[in-house]
């Protein structure tokens, strides 16, 4: 009895200062609809979990990593060979990054096909597309940090492509490289992006995204809208199911890290020729492959410039989908579903093609 009284006193104390009762009340009411597409609701939480894994392992790597052209490669080598569980922490960081991008894509396309961007969730979608951009920027900047040959040339190619963006290309190239060439200055910059600027931006956009998800609750697909659906409480039923997924993810990460530890390759040498088989990370392969297929000149425009422009416009279109699609009118809505199917096929085919060639 005494203990219960004390707990009650603590609850009242905290509530008076932090308003915790409102959170408790919110959690008590929050519910997740049950239907045949409920499985897709788990991928947002999974992406968030893998992001937390990135933050924790990334903070650990910072204890030993040294961001300079002279010391970066050696410090990663030191992590992989000397530091206890260093191979595990770095491999999990790399694997989790890749899985996070994968679950992010699944989350995005499931939201797209269920038309979860319908009013009033347009800004949830827009904030999500920003998070996709941030995740890709994390991947691109993190890839260079071990300062190995593959990363060095992938960054050369990647920043060169950024230089093809109409109007601002040259500025962008110099901004990304910290000069005309990929050098130690680029590494320092990418390190700053990767551990300070991108995390700061992500914190803000992610907070907005999550607040909007709480504000509007789970969206149900149009075909099920208006029907009376069974619901499960978010806390604890849905969260415990989430938790099972996260435990499985940790297991998968540990297994992947142990069976396929992330390699380090050879130290970058700015004056050595590019090795054969330069490829970006898999999530950039579709762009890489597209640019490779374009002819040098299309009419009067350079092929590369055309490709980059198309990707840029495509990205803006993708971000604005909630304002262009009017799910109430059937034909236009089916067109957007078609666009999604085409895009998935395009991404899958180009990625596999780019991987095989």
């Amino acid at each position, binding site marked *: 009895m005494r203990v219960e009284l004390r707990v009650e006193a603590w609850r009242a104390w905290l509530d008076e200062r932090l308003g915790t009762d409102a959170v408790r009340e919110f959690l008590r009411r929050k519910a997740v609809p049950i239907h045949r597409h409920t499985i897709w609701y788990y991928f947002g939480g999974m992406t968030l979990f893998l992001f937390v894994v990135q933050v*924790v392992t990334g903070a*650990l790597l910072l*204890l030993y990593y040294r961001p300079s052209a002279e010391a970066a490669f050696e410090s990663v080598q030191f992590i992989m060979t*000397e530091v*206890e*569980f260093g191979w*595990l*922490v770095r491999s999990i960081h790399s694997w989790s990054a890749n899985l996070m991008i994968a679950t992010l894509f699944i989350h995005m396309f499931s939201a797209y096909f269920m038309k979860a961007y319908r009013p009033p969730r347009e800004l949830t979608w827009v904030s999500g597309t920003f998070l996709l951009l941030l995740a890709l920027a994390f991947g691109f900047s993190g890839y260079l940090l071990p300062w190995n040959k593959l990363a060095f040339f992938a960054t050369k190619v990647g920043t060169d492509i950024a230089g093809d963006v109409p109007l601002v290309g040259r500025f962008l190239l110099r901004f990304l490289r910290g000069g005309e060439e990929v050098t130690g200055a680029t590494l320092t910059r990418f390190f700053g992006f990767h551990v300070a600027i991108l995390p700061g931006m992500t914190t803000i956009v992610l907070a907005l995204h999550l607040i909007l998800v709480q504000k509007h609750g789970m969206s149900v697909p149009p075909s099920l809208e208006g029907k009376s659906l069974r619901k499960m409480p978010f806390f604890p039923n849905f969260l415990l199911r989430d938790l099972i997924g996260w435990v499985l993810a*940790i297991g998968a990460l540990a297994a992947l890290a142990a069976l396929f530890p992330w390699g380090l390759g050879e130290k970058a040498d700015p004056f050595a020729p590019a090795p054969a088989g330069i490829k970006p990370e898999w999530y950039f392969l579709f762009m890489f492959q597209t640019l490779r297929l374009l002819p040098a000149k299309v009419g009067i425009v350079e092929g590369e410039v055309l490709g980059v422009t198309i990707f840029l416009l495509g990205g803006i279109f993708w971000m604005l989908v909630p304002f262009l699609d009017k799910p109430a009118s059937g034909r236009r809505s089916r067109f957007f579903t078609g666009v999604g199917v085409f895009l998935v096929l395009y991404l899958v085919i180009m990625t596999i093609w780019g991987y095989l060639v």
Partner: protein
Amino acid sequence: MPSWSEQRRKLLNILLGTSVGATLVAIFYPILKFMIPPEVIEATQASVVAGRVNELPPNSGKIFKFGNKPGLLVRTPTGEYKAFSAVCTHLDCIVQYRPDMRLIWCACHNGQYNLSGKNIAGPPPRPLEEYVVNIRGEEIVVSKA
């Protein structure tokens, strides 16, 4: 005697509790181990060339590198060579030779050592470690005793 279903519940709780515990251990053990820096094996140098014979006039001193630690080479007013660890035994500052005091002096907390390395004034608790000095031709070779 608890019922069968109560016993079963208890068993399940034990299994669940231990697996949660094991998972947490499996996560936090590597994290803690990772944070402890590994021992860096020092290249143990037995001796080092600290300077050249005509470099130091009598009543002067210089710092030299002994592996990754600083050493102090002193030429006493009588012309004799002496070498010590330059790490003050008080709080790890680097000591220097003071020609005006004819002493080894630490600027951090006014610690003083005589020319045998013995702590004679101020806070240092122990003498400086003394090294052996040998002249080999033009080179002054310092080695650990």
